[in-house]
């Protein structure tokens, strides 16, 4: 994975976005290839989440261009992003707490009967199928997700991203609220999705998780890109140096 030739799955060129005069993202370019996991690192407030929200449609970039499979893409809301098979697992999970797992999984994309009514039974059946694969211990299909544990809620959010045949997956600190076992589950899932040829942007604070899971890492600081490295070529100290001091190692580009 150290050399990526061919058309990138996603290319974000020269993206800028500011809020009230503060440049949250300042001319940043990143790309992502099929079957690749790209880590996004940096301090809180470095602009990682903001950058990625331009891709998921939650924010609108002020300047710059996004290319999907080499073609220019206009993403102005989350619906557009879904249209390009971009799925996002937000740090906050973005679940409606008062709805059950199936309603959350299909939110905005409900299965309907021939008469146009929501098909709750069918959606629950589909939810049971995908949860059996992702989290076989999941049983709480008929309670609001507010009654679920952190890990169970996370698996609902992940199921939502995976179910709809995502090609591009954005994961914003997917393991922040999880115990060791569930973290392991997420790591295995990332490996599996990668084998299936998805491209994954992974926002992550845990440097070890980055070294284990990512092919490349992009480090951001104060809204700017410090550099991009092939994870296999550098040590974790190199990456920490980039995050903390903005020091670019020789092998970065």
């Amino acid at each position, binding site marked *: 994975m150290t050399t990526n030739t061919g058309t990138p799955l996603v290319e974000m060129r020269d993206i800028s976005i500011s809020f009230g005069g503060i440049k949250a993202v300042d001319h940043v370019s990143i790309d992502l290839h099929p079957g690749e996991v790209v880590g996004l690192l940096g301090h809180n407030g470095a602009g990682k989440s903001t950058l990625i929200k331009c891709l998921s449609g939650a924010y609108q970039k002020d300047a710059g261009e996004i290319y999907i499979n080499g073609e220019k893409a206009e993403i102005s809301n989350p619906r557009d992003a879904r249209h390009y098979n971009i799925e996002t697992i937000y740090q906050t999970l*973005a679940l409606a707490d008062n*709805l*059950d797992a199936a309603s959350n999984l299909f939110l905005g994309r409900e299965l309907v009967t021939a008469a146009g*009514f929501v098909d709750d039974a069918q959606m629950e059946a589909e939810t049971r199928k995908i949860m059996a694969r992702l989290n076989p211990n999941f049983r709480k299909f008929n309670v609001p997700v507010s009654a679920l544990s952190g890990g169970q809620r996370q698996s609902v959010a992940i199921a939502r991203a995976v179910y709809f045949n995502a090609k591009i997956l954005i994961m914003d600190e997917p393991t922040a609220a999880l115990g060791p076992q569930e973290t392991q589950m997420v790591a295995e899932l990332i490996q599996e999705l990668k084998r299936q040829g998805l491209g994954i942007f992974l926002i992550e604070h845990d440097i070890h998780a980055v070294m284990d899971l990512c092919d490349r890492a992009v480090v951001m600081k104060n809204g700017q890109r410090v550099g991009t490295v092939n994870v296999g070529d550098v040590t974790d100290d190199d990456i920490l140096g980039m995050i903390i001091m903005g020091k670019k190692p020789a092998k970065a580009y």
Partner: protein
Amino acid sequence: MTKTPLSAPPVTPGHTAVGGNPVKRFLAATEIDTRLLGMLAALLLIWGGFHMYGAIVNGNGAFLTPRNLWNLSVQTSSIGIMATGMVLVIITRNIDLSVGSLIGVTGMTMGILQVDVLPQILGLGHWSIWIITCAVGIALGALIGAFHGWLIAYRGIPSFIVTLGGLMVWRGMAFIANGGKTISPVDSTFALLGGGPGGNVGATGSWIVGALGCAGVVWLLVQGRKQRVKHEFPKRPMWAEVTLGAIGCGAIVGAVLLMNAYPLPVGILRRLDLPEDAFVSHGFAIPVLIMMAVGIAMTILMTRTRFGRYVFAIGGNPEAAALAGINTRWMTLKIFALMGALTGIAAVIASARLNSATNALGTLDELYVIAAAVIGGTSLAGGVGTIYGAILGALVMQSLQSGMVLIGFDAAIQRIVVGMVLVLAVYLDNLYRARTK
């Protein structure tokens, strides 16, 4: 809360087997909403209490009589219809304080239209006057509601402020529309929609409604079971299905018998050229049938359509709803437009019942509507609420009102009691929720 009890199978097989006492087992197997039972119990308590009080203190228990309960059903219609819309507004963390004034302005517009305008064009008593009047009234309500919704969703003004302003503006407009004068009487066909003389469907009509209702109950149970079998979900035991069907049909038949037990008074019999000793049933009043139709339509909307699902999602987590691609602003506008249209329907009933349009029509209704929705279990924190709860809440409010009139409490006491009941009901609901969580 998002699913009808028929499609949601919260009972795992383990549950049914373990559940301790017979009552718990029964509730678990039938999947009856215990909150609904609580409300029904409270309602029966209120009804029984007023009846006993009347019987003991005044020597005349007038509450539990077919006549009073029939009147109660008619009085509940207008508030009940608006309460179903208020559920959506409150679920999405908004409020609508303008519905009472909206009744005033739409009622007044309809009054002018059917008394002053349309007879000039079509001729007095033309068959289409009531249809045009209703259509215009409902459309006007929807339009004003949509305007409120636009200010709230697209201009970022809090709904409390927009509708507080609306409360004053539309009441003033209702006064200006006809210089404060009352318009009366309204079109004779239009007047039937209020449930006044002749505004009821009689014994046969009521039995037809009842039969349709029973067929609906059975159909829902059969469909629900089919779905569960198809997807191999846990099923309700057969005895529970049969019990549910029996309870549902029994309640419907009981309501029909009750409505048919109230005969037309002598004056109306004379007007209809019937012998004075004839027993002719009232049957369901037309406004009650309208309320039932609205209740069913709104329940379908909330539990079976994407629109309803999005209403709940926005209430539960507006940000998540937006990230899921739901156009939350457009939804808000539509919800307020729907609230306005329902207010238009309520205005039809209220002015038809009075047989006149007055600029004070619907004064303070907003408070009763909000109270009905909240007593019916709609959470002001958003995300939770049911249509049937709101209609039951309206019935509770109206029972208190008319019960106190019946036993001779004056207006001051009535307000004190209604106010206290509202606060108490929400407190009890909090306790219930904390316990069942």
